[in-house]
């Protein structure tokens, strides 16, 4: 089921949560809506589900305009952030809920429901848990039951709100892999919301980076990380340090030193360079390298990291360097920026 989101805007009183968002989600795709809190990602997910109605714009399920359909009519599987399992029902009854509330004409018999629930319990690898109550399950188990309950209604799309937000790191990693496998097996068009970039990058086919009610960038995890489209994405995904530069006749200048970087269509004038630590090389001072001084050295896991002050010393960036490079505290060093994003200064 392909989803088309056309010019969706949502106001909550005077504050706008979304300003005209357009997005096409392909059939069978696993998509992450990634952004900080307040970016509108959860609002967008709830609008797709029909739990919230937009101030403007349309949502298409395949060729059909679903904008005016109620949440019941949309037939979406929604997994809530805190699971929202019915605490007075057993796991079995929770999963069977969506089938039992159907009108009698389409309601399956109890035998058929039993078969379905058992299949789903197997699918989420909790076959022995039907008789338990939600309070007797761990967080990760509740998450999987919530997913089984959502899948029971054979939804056209699966929507997950911060699916791993309330779990500890270890369970989160396992469940992430498990969800990806489940998606590949069942082939549901799946949209999930997260504020965790690692989760989005690892799990999703494509990532939608959102900020302040707008889509900043839509692309594969590689696109997002290697070719951030906006300063926001540079800051939000991975690490980047800002260097103020001057663009003049296609050349990029830092304090009068020409950098070996293309201006990428940025007009002459002041601009900002976004530099990732892994794209910076350190070497003994030499012509053609930016003069700098080593200020701090530290070790972070497998990486060696140096914080260097560029040129006159007001601007500091960080650089990863290999074992063969000689650097010493408070000593001059040559810096080469191999790759960087450049945007006109705001």
């Amino acid at each position, binding site marked *: 089921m392909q989803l088309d989101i056309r010019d969706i805007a949502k106001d909550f009183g005077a504050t706008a949560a979304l300003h005209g968002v357009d997005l096409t989600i392909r059939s069978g795709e696993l998509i992450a809506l990634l952004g900080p809190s307040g970016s509108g990602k959860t609002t967008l997910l709830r609008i797709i589900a029909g739990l919230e109605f937009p101030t403007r714009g349309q949502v298409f399920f395949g060729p059909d305009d679903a904008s005016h359909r109620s949440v019941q009519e949309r037939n979406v599987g929604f997994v809530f952030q805190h699971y929202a399992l*019915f605490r*007075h029902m057993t796991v079995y009854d929770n999963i069977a809920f969506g089938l039992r509330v159907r009108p009698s004409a389409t309601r399956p018999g109890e035998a058929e429901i039993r078969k379905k629930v058992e299949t789903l319990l197997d699918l989420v690898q909790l076959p022995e848990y039907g008789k338990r109550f939600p309070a007797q399950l761990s967080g990760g188990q509740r998450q999987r039951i919530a997913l089984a309950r959502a899948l029971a209604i054979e939804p056209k799309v699966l929507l997950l709100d911060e699916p791993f937000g309330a779990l500890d790191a270890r369970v989160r990693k396992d469940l992430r892999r498990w969800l990806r496998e489940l998606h590949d097996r069942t082939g549901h068009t799946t949209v999930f919301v997260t504020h965790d970039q690692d989760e989005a990058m690892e799990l999703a086919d494509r990532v939608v980076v959102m900020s302040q009610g707008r889509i900043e960038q839509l692309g594969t995890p590689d696109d997002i990380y290697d070719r951030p489209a906006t300063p926001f994405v540079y800051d939000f995904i991975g690490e980047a340090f800002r260097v103020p530069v001057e663009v003049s006749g296609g050349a990029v200048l830092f304090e009068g030193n020409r950098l070996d970087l293309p201006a990428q269509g940025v007009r002459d004038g002041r601009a900002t360079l976004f530099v990732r630590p892994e794209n910076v090389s350190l070497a003994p001072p030499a012509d053609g390298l930016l003069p700098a001084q080593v200020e701090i050295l530290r070790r972070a896991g497998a990486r060696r990291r140096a914080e260097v002050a560029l040129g006159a010393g007001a601007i500091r960036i960080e650089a990863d360097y290999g074992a063969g490079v000689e650097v010493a505290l408070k000593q001059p060093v040559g810096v080469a920026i191999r790759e960087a994003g450049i945007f006109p200064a705001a």
Partner: protein
Amino acid sequence: MVDTAPAVAPSLAAVPPSRRVAPTTEPRLVRGVLIAITATFLSVFLLFPLGVVFVEAFRNGTAGFLSALADPQAQSAIRLTLLVAAIAVPCNIVFGVAAAWAVAKFEFRGKTLLVSLIDLPFSVSPVVAGLVYVLLLGSNTLIGGWLQESFGLRVIFAVPGIVLATIFVTFPFVARELIPLMEQQGNGDEEAALSLGASGLQTFWRTTLPNVKWALLYGVLLCNARAMGEFGAVAVLSGKLRGQTVTMPLHIELAYNEYASVSAFSVAALLAGLALVTLVVKTFLEWKYADHIAGTGRH
């Protein structure tokens, strides 16, 4: 003995015993005084009078007690009280659930005002409430006259008036129990049910109601106890026609004023007994379903 005590664990011995208790725990003397004050007040103002009620009721033995209750007027009072409670309590369940639902699940203008209004019967004297109904619905008023002429329905000094007064007084009980719980639970379960295809009504019966059933039951018990015991507002509206508009509390007062103390205290003992049963049922439910009740708060 002190001198020969082994010198082990000097660090423990260095701490005076009085310091080993939790910092929030008061010294033994303070605790004792607080407990004594509480126990004294409970005994003097609650247990002792309650005991007197039962002692007086059984002054002429069990036979006297039973014959007082078998009296036609007492029988009529008991029946009327049960009837009034049977009408007022369901009305307040409907109102309480509707009000709690509206307050907890929607945002609307004037919500704070509505919540304060629900509490009004707690702050208004029941006698004042009774008088207001007399002024509004008495047979020589516009509405009251119209009701009597068109439908032959007498409200004041009749059973409908007593029911009205009881509903007014017991208004807040169910709503007050449900509102905080429903506000705390939020809309999550309802949204989940709707997303799974349930209709609004199915959502209410299968998720909303089960989530608040213990609070609802508790509210109903309190509401019922108050409905049976209400005196002030009912006294104004009843007219005290014996055998017709006299409820149990009114019967007790009438009998007592006529020095029929066994009769008065017998019915009083029955009323107090109902209250005690309510209390026991409530405590039993809280004990038996403690996990469940705690679990309905969050999970």
